[in-house]
Structures are given as structure tokens and as C-alpha cells.
């Protein structure tokens, strides 16, 4: 349980700011994410000393240096393992894992996948800028086919991963998406991630001004966001567009965009967002909705309950301890079952 008693002096954003100079490129989307997390943590009712931020390597992974919490800037791609160790050692901690599309999905894909399937109760934020920032602009596993970078001068040829579908393939219990240009939405999403009892996977569309500027503008740019983004809210209809005049309906085998005209969403049979369906079909549907054909959904895409790895490991240990009477007997253990005396 990461939630303890509320501090006497309520925490504020300032408590989470380190004196270190933040060293991202001016204009980098990472600033806004940092800011939003610094605004989120004081509001969660968790003592400051119980936060741990763990990251891999990448621009995004510099994150822990700028959070005035316990932090660990580990090695490339391996943050999920260290974060798991921290959480298993002390389930009271609120563990935030920061990774990038290269760190988390290229070199670190396996650890991420196993952290997800194990349902370790940590919060994973994947900063997706569809490029390797820190190593200066090579394509990443989320770069679209044909992306020209230093290592792909004639265009990349590998199909990109869809991070949501990837997380779903590992049956992650909480999957969400948010964007670096919308602090309010980020904060809401981060809160939902922490509230979820289990692994939380949050993809953040993040802009890299230097090597992949405006990569997400077709989704969240001022021109496009009304038509190309769908803000999901549990229990509410899937409407979008200027004045919410469009909706998503299910035609029996796939989603469709329809104009609402003057009708209410209910009248038109617009789908109601239900992220808690146990199976994967619903989230798979959302994962494949993408502009320009569909609005790209943001918000909580999936949230289902399953026992967590860290709680169960603790339970098994506790049960074993409880099944003994009294303090365990080290000498007895070392002696074992068969001794003889000479």
C-alpha cells in the first residue's frame, strides 16, 4: 500500500524540484511531462520519501535527476528490472519508471513485457518521440516505415511497434495514453495510473524538437486535434470533433466514425467507453484506431484488476513466516534434517 497518512505540511510541486539544472533542449516535450509529474505527486497523499523514480538511458531517462525523490538512473533498457527489485523489496514504495521508445521498446522490450505480464504494481511512463534523442536522431521501433534518419538514409523498412498493442500482447492491466502538450490530461492520467493496483503503462506522445520536431502534430497539433484525437472517459460516449459532433459506433465487426448531426450520442448508438472489459478485443480496437481514418484515442484504454506480483510475493513470504511458530531458528535450518554426532 503506497498510501499512508497525509503529511502535516501538505506537499507542493516545489518539494519535487531538484536544484540541478534541467538539461533538455529548450522546447523539448520532456519539460512539460516533468512539470506535470511534479504537480501530480504532491496530490497523491503519499509521503515524499516513499517515491522512487527509476529510469534507463536516453534523454527521457534523465528524468530522475530532476525529481527531488529517491531516484535511480540505471542502464539502457533495464529500468523495469531495477524498478521490480525496488518494489519487491519494499511494496510500500510508489515506483515510477521512466523510459523512452528506444529504451523501453528496442533494447528493453523484453523486460518491459515481463514487467507488464507479471503485473508488478509500478507506474511506467513511456516517452514516445519516435526517435533516439540522446544518440542524436536514429530511427526507433516506433518510427513509421520510410522514416529517414542517419541510419536509414533511404528510409526505414521495419514495421513500427504500436506500444498499446504491444502492452496488450502482454496483457497489461492498465494501459493509457496521454500527450506532452496537455498538462491537465497528463496529471489526470498519472493519477489514474497510481490509483490502479497493478502495473500501469502510460504512453506519452512526446515531441523531440531537435530530431523529430512536430512528429505528433498530425494528432495533437492545433489544426488537427479536434478531428484527430478522442478523449476517452470511462462510462461516457466516444465523441470528438469540433463541438463533439462526431462519434464512434461499432458496426458489429469494427468501429466506424459517424457524424452526429443534431442527434445525441445515445440516439446514434455511440459506443460508451468501458476500459474494464477483461478480454483484449476492446483495447485492441482502440489501439488500432489512428488518424487519419480515426481519431487517436487518449486516456485510459484498459483497466482490469488482477493480483499483483509484489503483493503475492509478500503474501507467500508472510504465509511461510506465519506458518512457523516463533522466530525462525537459524541453527535448526543449518542443521537440517539429518545430523549425526561424533
Amino acid at each position: 500500500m503506497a498510501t499512508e497518512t497525509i503529511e502535516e505540511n501538505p506537499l507542493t510541486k516545489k518539494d519535487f524540484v531538484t536544484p540541478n539544472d534541467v538539461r533538455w533542449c529548450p522546447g523539448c516535450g520532456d519539460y512539460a511531462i516533468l512539470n506535470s509529474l511534479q504537480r501530480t505527486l504532491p496530490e497523491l497523499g503519499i509521503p515524499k520519501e516513499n517515491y522512487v523514480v527509476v529510469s534507463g538511458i536516453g534523454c527521457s531517462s534523465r528524468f530522475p535527476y530532476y525529481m527531488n525523490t529517491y531516484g535511480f538512473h540505471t542502464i539502457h533498457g533495464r529500468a523495469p528490472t531495477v524498478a521490480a527489485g525496488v518494489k519487491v523489496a519494499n511494496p510500500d514504495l510508489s515506483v515510477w519508471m521512466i523510459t523512452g521508445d528506444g529504451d523501453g521498446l528496442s533494447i528493453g522490450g523484453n523486460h518491459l513485457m515481463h514487467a507488464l505480464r507479471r503485473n508488478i504494481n509500478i507506474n511506467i511512463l513511456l516517452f514516445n518521440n519516435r526517435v533516439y534523442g540522446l544518440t542524436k536522431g536514429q530511427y526507433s521501433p516506433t518510427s513509421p516505415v520510410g522514416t529517414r534518419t542517419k541510419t536509414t538514409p533511404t528510409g526505414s523498412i521495419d514495421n513500427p511497434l504500436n506500444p498499446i498493442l504491444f502492452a496488450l500482447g502482454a496483457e497489461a492491466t492498465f494501459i493509457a495514453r496521454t500527450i506532452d502538450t496537455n498538462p491537465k490530461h497528463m496529471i489526470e492520467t498519472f493519477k489514474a495510473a497510481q490509483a490502479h493496483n497493478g502495473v500501469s503503462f502510460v504512453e506519452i506522445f512526446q515531441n523531440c524538437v531537435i530530431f523529430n520536431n512536430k512528429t505528433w502534430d498530425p494528432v495533437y497539433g492545433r489544426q488537427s486535434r479536434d478531428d484527430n484525437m478522442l478523449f476517452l472517459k470511462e462510462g461516457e460516449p466516444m465523441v470528438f470533433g469540433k463541438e463533439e459532433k462526431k462519434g464512434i459506433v461499432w458496426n458489429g465487426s469494427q468501429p466506424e466514425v459517424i457524424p452526429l448531426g443534431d442527434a445525441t450520442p445515445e440516439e446514434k448508438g455511440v459506443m460508451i467507453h468501458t476500459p474494464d472489459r477483461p478480454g483484449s478485443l476492446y483495447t485492441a480496437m482502440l489501439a488500432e484506431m489512428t488518424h487519419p481514418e480515426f481519431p487517436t484515442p487518449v486516456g485510459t484504454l484498459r483497466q482490469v484488476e488482477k493480483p499483483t506480483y509484489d503483493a503475492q510475493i509478500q503474501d507467500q513470504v508472510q504465509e511461510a513466516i506465519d506458518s512457523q511458530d516463533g522466530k525462525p531458528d537459524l541453527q535448526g535450518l543449518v542443521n537440517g534434517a539429518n545430523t549425526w554426532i561424533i
Partner: protein
Amino acid sequence: MGTESTIADEFKELKTVVIRFAGDSGDGMQTIGERFTDSSAAFGNDLATFPDFPAEIRAPAGTIPGVSAFQIQFGSTEILTPGDAPDALVAMNPAALAVHLRDLTEGGMLVVNSAAFTEANLKMADFESNPLDDPELTSKYELIQVDINHFTQESLKETELTAKDKLRCKNFFALGFMYWIYSRPIDNTIDFIREKWSRKAPALAEANITVLKAGYYFGETTETSRNRYMVAKAEVEAGTYRKISGNEALVLGLIAGAEKADRKLLYSGYPITPASSILEMLSNYKHFGVKTVQAEDEIAAIGVAIGGSFAGNLGITGTSGPGMCLKAEFIGLATSTELPLVIINVQRGGPSTGLPTKTEQSDLLQAVYGRHSDAPIPVIAANSPSDCFETAIEAVRIALTFSTPIIVLSDLYLANGAEPWRIPSMDGIDEIKKPIAEEGGNYTTFARDEDTLSRTLAIPGQKGNEHRIGGLEKDEGGSVSYDPDNHEEMTHIRAEKLKRIANSFPPTKVLGEKSGKVLVLSWGGTYGSITAAVSAMQAEGFSVSSVHLKHLHPMPNDLKDIMDGFDQILVPELNMGQLDVLLRSQFLVDTVAYNKIQGQPFKVKELTKKIHELLQD
């Protein structure tokens, strides 16, 4: 054949005997080897054992790759190895004979299950004719052919077991017969069978007992003219004993170390021969607060352990050579962040996948140098199955006291081998004192203890001690620093800290005189054979001493002086000369390397021969 002494009555009395049981992996050789061991231990012999499994889980029955063997040496004197060569070989089928006969001492006893020497079996073992018909066999060895299948089935004919189930008992016939030959008590084994199987399979349990007795009485009734042997109790230190294998001892040592340091143990591993059983055994000790994680690979395993250490647990990970390769990058991170961490490498034959079920001690240089950059960390090694216990505690002590990752080298021979162990009193073990930082905010991440240069951990959950660590170079305060002088200083501190660890070592033990002609200098699982060889030669008056190192990096401060006392330094290793590289570069001494790379331990006689050569130089 053994060390013959007096002949009492109908028995020859021997000081030591080496027996090897060999058969198909489905024949239960490990089971009877274990039983023979237990009853010899209970009887009061000193002993050492070594099981030799096939690489395959279950190769086709009767084939050469399917042969499984178990060797035991027991005696009335101190036993340090499972023995060079068997005095008696039990071969349950032709394949077992094909593989193991060459090791049998000339004149040794050869017990074969004649029923298994069928044409089909002979073919599978690549025999062109039946070796039992070869007159050389009878002239060279004391051949005892027994139709074990027949007698087993005969003795069970009253029971309702299927023919197949009956035959499954045949290993106990062989055991019973060997008990008779070596005048061992059988009650112990009967008790064991009852306790273990009576509930699950009472009929089978009783059948095994019947067959065991049949084997014993078969000796008594049909083979009265046969030589029988006695091996008296060993004169060993009084105390409570148990039998222990290397991995068992390691596991118990880790738990004891964690208890003595008052840290929760978090072990994270990924299965690999011969380290898997560490993870397996530790997962049974949850009532000691031990948490075990079977990670997705070796990289994840060490990552979890590092995370655990950062959060205040004692993080431990274990693997074998290929897994060590994978841990290298994370070991560098633990070195840079100076987190306590125990990394166990149970070595096996290489390179690459190599000989996964054979022993070798060829990962020493990897332990010392197997990471990019100057990233010094301590390396220690266990020297016998029971010594794994102390080695584990020593590793925990160093890791915590010096806040450092440490590599512990064991090997397949130690891991699987077993010996009796005089159980120490847990109260007698020193506490390991390295508290975490005080709460409250006066925390400097890389502030150091003056003596040890060790930093003190502050752990998540502590108020006011929030701080960040990572793999980039940093200054004392823990801030990232690209400053050239700071980097040089930190590099020197890391090197110096390693050196200081040697100040905490006890004086190095020399077996024998402190100076002389030959010093045998060694490490790891070769301890038993080397000590046996050196002691024997010392008893014969030769000028040879030995030093067996537990601490390999850094080496003990007094080692140079000891080496200076000898004319020649012999360095026997089961590798191409790795300790030798360290000794030469550190001490500029012209050592004599003696290397064996056969996936097998040294034989005592190989060593004595080599030492004799040196003495003659």
C-alpha cells in the same frame, strides 16, 4: 586398491575406499550413491562424493550419453576428495562399463549386472563383442558377474508388482551387495526407504527393502569365499555433523549472512546448470523472509537484485559462465553506484555453452576483468562443498561492509559434490555491522568511511534522505560530474577501496612449512585434491607446502612474503592458467602453471607426480 592396512578375521581393513556406481540414468544410480553415502556418514566415516550426470535429461536408455554415475570415497582418515580412481566399480549395463572401466584401478573390483549385457545393449554401447568374455577383464580386475535382474525378480516373485516395477528395484540389489562387501549397516537405508516412500507407494517401498536385503544376503549366502572389507570410523573432531553439498552450503551461508547482517535477503536468478539449485533451494526458505524471483533472464536477475539492494534488501544473484557474460553491464552499474550485491558464479566448462555438466575453474579472469573500463570489484572463491557456507558469509560481509558488488566463484564440482560437515554454532558467527544512514537529511551520497572508503546507504522510505544515483560519473555529493580531475579521483578511490578490503582478511594459512622448495598456490574447487597430495608428500618428508586462496581480488597482503619463502611456485588450475596471470602481473613471479582442462577435477596422483617433477628440477 585403497590403502590396505591390517587383515582382521575374514575382513581386510582399509583406510579408504573409492566406489563408483554407474548405470543408465533411469537405473537410480544417484539414489543408491546417496544411500551409501548416508550410511557411511552415519557409521562414522569421513567421506566425499561426486555425482556425474549426463548432459541430457534422459538420453535413450542404454546409450553412452545416458550413463549416470556416482562416486564416493570414504575412510577412517580425513577424506578430501571423492577419490582419483575407483577401487570398485558397479556397472549396471554395457554403456556404463564402456564409459567407466578405464578409470577402475588395476586389480579393482568390478561388479556387473550380467543380465544387461544383451546384444541390443552391447550395440548401443558400441561393443563389437561381449567384453565380459574378454579374458583380460578377469585377469586385470576382480570381476563379479551377477544376474541382478534375475535375483531382483526372484526376490519379488511373491509381490503383485508388474515386471517393470520389479525391475525398477534392481539398484537396491546392487546396493545391498556392496553393503555386504564393505560391511556397512543396512538399517539406516531401510529407515530411509520407509520414511520416504511408505506413504506414497508402500508396495514399492517394501519391495525395495526386500531387494536390498536380497542383495546383502546374496553376498552372505553365495559368495562366502569373496573378499570383504572393513573401513573403520574416522577420527574426526567431535561435534554435530551433517552431509552437505556446495550449493546447499552456499544457500545456508547466504541466509546466515543476511541474518547476521540483519538484512532481508532478495535473491533473483535465472535457471542455469549448475546454479539453478541455489534459486530452487532458497525458494523454500520464505519463512526466513527470503524472497526469490525467477527473472526473465540473467540481466533482469541482477537488475532485480540491484533494485533490492537500493531499496535496503541484500540483493543477491547467481548464475554460471554464460549468465555472467550477461550480467557484466549491470555489474559495472553496481560498481559505479557502490551498492552491496553478491554475485555467484557456479562455474562449468566453456567456452560458450561448452560442457555444461562438467566442472572447470575458468571464469576467474572474467570475474576480475570482465567489464568495460576500470571497474574493480572483489572476487572470492569457495574451496570445498562445506566451505561454500563460510564463503557465502564472507561475501555478505564484504559486500555490506565495503558497500560493493562482489563475485563469488564456486564450480560444478563443489556445487554437486558433498561431504560431511561439522556444523558450526550460529552464535559463534560474527555479526556484520554496516547500518544504513540515519534519517533526517544530512546525507551525502558518496561520503566515505575513512578506513574502508565505504559509502553508507540511505534507502527509499527514509525521510529527508532523498537522493539520486546512476551510472554516470559523479562527485562526492552524488551529482553528475564531467570534471576531469573528479573522474581521476573517483577512479583512484574505487581502486583504493578495493585494496583496502585486503586489510580485513585474516593471515593467510600455509599448509606445512613457511618456506621450502615448492609452494603449491591454488584456489577454488581444487582444494581437496591439492591438500591431499601435499599432505601425503609432507608426510613422506618432501619440502612442499601449499596455500589455497579464498581471496583472489584483492589478494591477501601477506601473500608476497609467503611466496618469497619458496624456490618454486606451482599453480595448478582447471583452466589455461588464470590465477597464474594474476600472480604474474601482480608479483612478477615466475610461477609454474599446471593446467588440466578436461572438465574433471585433478587426481591426487597427477598432482604428486607434478610436484615430484618440480622437486627434481
